[in-house]
């Protein structure tokens, strides 16, 4: 096998696995400047958010990628998250109550959904419909809802009022799960029935939930005092790991295969699903001056650990990519408040 073919096969492996992780199958179109790489979403300040793009070999970075393609438009205030289908990326900005729809490989503007949303947070697509969590009024959780958007007309079709915190949203076997916790409040996960569009069941945890992560049909829940594995086939707890003193303040969670990673302060800890207890020795820690922006974004993908740092939120933050041993592979300045990674 010649060396070029070898690299090509590794490359396509990367692309295929990255795509299957996001549950949209094999991409139909791979042409475009942003077809092979990682999107870093920068929440932004009062001037609006931005999108950075890094090639999958980490060698090149494009800042302000969206505006470089669409110079007369912007993504709006407080860009929160992105969800995808085969063709499009749906970019949510919670300060502008809108979703910007772009071609996921070229970033060309396609359309915009800007009604029916009230502080939108996260979204996903199931059977031709987008389900988007909305925080609505900050002073109450009574009005938090999931917006059901028909993607053919790109208009609001229905709202499912949760009466509970509406944050991250997941899909498994045609059921939808919502993390009912944000900003250190809330301790439930709710299961939605999409046929009659109601909340079917709630699962409560012993303390406030900081983060959740879906992997292989299991939802992992990071609460203040423990990490729980929830089997989504029966929506029951299947494993629990207690957090030790050293892990207090654990904030972000990411899972790949049977490896579980979480952050506390400026350290990352890891363990596997077969472990009984969690090691109190950190896998690594990183230098930061940021209090709130430490691990502002955190993810694990194909054996690489991705972290972002929000710095002071009034100047550019940075990302780091590390291998599974925690060794630094790449550090890169991005935009203001980098909060999440998406593997294209």
């Amino acid at each position, binding site marked *: 096998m010649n060396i070029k073919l070898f690299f090509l096969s590794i490359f396509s492996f990367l692309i295929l696995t990255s795509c299957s992780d996001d549950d949209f199958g094999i991409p139909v179109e791979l042409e475009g400047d942003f077809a092979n790489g990682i999107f870093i979403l920068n929440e932004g300040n009062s001037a609006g958010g931005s999108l950075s793009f890094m090639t999958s070999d980490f060698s090149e970075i494009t800042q302000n990628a969206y505006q470089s393609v669409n110079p007369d438009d912007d993504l709006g205030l407080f860009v929160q998250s992105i969800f995808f289908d085969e063709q499009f990326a749906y970019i949510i900005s919670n300060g*502008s*109550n809108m979703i910007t729809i772009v071609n996921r490989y070229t970033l060309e503007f396609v359309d915009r959904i800007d*009604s029916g949303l009230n502080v939108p947070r996260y979204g996903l697509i199931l059977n031709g419909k987008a389900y988007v969590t909305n925080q*609505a*009024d900050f*002073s109450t959780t009574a*009005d938090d809802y999931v917006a059901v958007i028909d993607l053919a007309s790109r208009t609001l079709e229905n709202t499912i009022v949760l009466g509970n915190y509406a944050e991250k949203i997941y899909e498994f076997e045609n059921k939808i799960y919502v993390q009912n916790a944000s900003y*250190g409040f809330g301790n439930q996960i709710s299961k939605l029935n999409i046929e009659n569009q109601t909340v079917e069941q709630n699962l409560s945890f012993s303390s406030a939930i900081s983060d959740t992560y879906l992997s292989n049909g299991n939802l992992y829940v990071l609460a203040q005092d423990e990490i729980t594995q929830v089997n989504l086939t029966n929506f029951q707890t299947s494993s629990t790991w207690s957090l030790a003193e050293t892990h207090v303040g654990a904030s972000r969670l990411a899972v790949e295969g049977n490896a579980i990673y979480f952050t506390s302060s400026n350290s990352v800890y890891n363990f596997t699903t077969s472990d009984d207890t969690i090691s109190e020795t950190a896998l690594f820690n990183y230098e930061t001056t940021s209090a709130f922006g430490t691990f502002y974004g955190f993810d694990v993908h194909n054996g690489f650990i991705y972290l972002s740092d929000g710095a002071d939120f009034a*100047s550019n933050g940075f990302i780091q990519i590390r291998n599974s041993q925690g060794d630094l592979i790449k550090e890169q300045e991005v935009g203001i408040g980098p909060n999440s990674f998406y593997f294209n």
Partner: protein
Amino acid sequence: MKQFRAHIFVCLCLVVSSALAQLDSIQQLDEVVLSDRQLQQFSVGQNLIEIPESRKRITANKLSDLLLENSTIHIRQNGYGMVASASFRGTTAQQTAVVWNGININSQFNGQTDFNTMPTYGYSEISIRPGGGSLLYGSGAVGGSIHLNNQLYFRDTTQVKLFSQIGSFNTFENFIETKHSTEKTSLKFNLNRSASDNDYPILGSSRTNLNGQFEQWSAHLSFAYKLSQNSQLNYHGQFYDGLRHFSVLRPSENKSNYSNTDSRNLIEWEYDKNDFKSVVKYAFLHEAFEYNQNIETNLSTANKANTHLVKTEVYQNYGKLDTNFNISIKQTAADGDNIIDEHIQHLNFSTLLNYNSKWATLSLGLRQEFSNFFDSPLLYTIGAELPVTSAYNLKLSHSKNFRQPSLNDLFWVEGTTNLQPETALQYEASHQFNFKHQSLSFQLTGFFNDISQMIRWLPDQTSTWKPENVDEVKTYGLTTSISKEFKLMPIHFKTQLNYEFTKAIDARTQRQLTFTPQHSAFLNLDLQYKTFALNFTQTYTGKAFTRTDNAPNEILEDFWLSHLNLAYQPKQIDFFSVNIGFKNLFNQAYQTIENRPMPGHQFYVNTIINL
């Protein structure tokens, strides 16, 4: 349009009914009731700049506009008519004290004053005092102080003044004032309304300013009564009530609004005999606001604070020596949806000495404050004024000033009660040249401020934003002004040019503070020909960084603003005058807060009637 017609009608009615009234004359030498007795006497070594009455009528009754066009104070506005703050010499909005009739009226909540809630016509005298002033005016007088005073006269007359203005974007300013005085009593009352659709086009885009409408009412009442030959009773009251919508960038954003009420009351008993004078004051300040984050759902949060202040001032003159001793107690109580129900109490002592001789005026002051939530340092001020020659005057000043934590700093949601006041050491030297025969004056002032324990809000581990005494900032720079008056044939010219250079450096990063321009300047040119007057104002605001790392491309662009006003006072009806004006003549797009665009060119016409 209906509203427009109504205003015209009001103007016309007033013109007709006023035909027999007499002109307000300012030439008389009256007995004046000074509301702030310390301002003139104890500003030794510092500049005290009074903004002339004539500048008020061309600034649409907004204190933010008046300061922008007549000083190098930096004004930041969230769009026209929205929340506006002022800062001196690279300091923050909380380091600017607003003093109303001698009382510091900065909001107890955020420690600053909103300059779009202050109609300029509500005050008879507006002065600016750059530099430290905590000794006299307490918390926040670090970068400088702005003084709003209401004077009263015992004149035995009755006067009425009416001001009515209409402008672009359905902007209306209306003001009525009546003054009545005898030899023993004096009364002044005014009422002001300010409203606008405020839907100006956003320059460089196809959008208009959305959800920016506002309506504000304010009233002022001042009263003085001579109890005897030596004693007098004074009252000053101010009431404000306004509803402002906060403008949004996109129609899909949640639209919010903000209503607030301020009421301020001050009662004084004054005793004056020979070289002795004493004043006993009681002030009650009330502020309340309601913020509605989404006008469609109407789930609002409301907070209010009440402040009681009792102060005694004693003045005694010993020939060349003036002395002043003050003692005051203050209590502020807060209550609301976002704030812990708490009380802050203060007790403070201050003393000032002035020594006046032919060769110099020297001043020394000390102040110590005690509070139940934080320790305050011993504050001091030293000032000197040296008349070196008849045309050259040297002023020197050094002081220690502070900014106490505000209610929001201390008690917001969970509260952070371990905060200490921000402190600042200030040095200032001013060279003043005044060539009376040439009607020329020139001034050059250098300043340096070393500010420590600055309070900054940062998110903690649980992502809750909390204030901390973390920052250290050094601000320094130069401010210069030149003014000249001359006559060219029948035209009287008056011109003033000011320029300020300011560095405001964060000691940790060695970078310029964000949203703080280094350069600012203004030029005022007044021409008077018979009963016509033309005023031209040019302001310049330098670029300001929007990022803490001073990224060179992340800036608010510098901007030049030009304003023109033409005034006419007909000879036959001398109680009446009319102004026609253009604001932002050259349609300059500008912002003082990122993503909060200000309006392009605007037009207004107003009438002033003095009866």
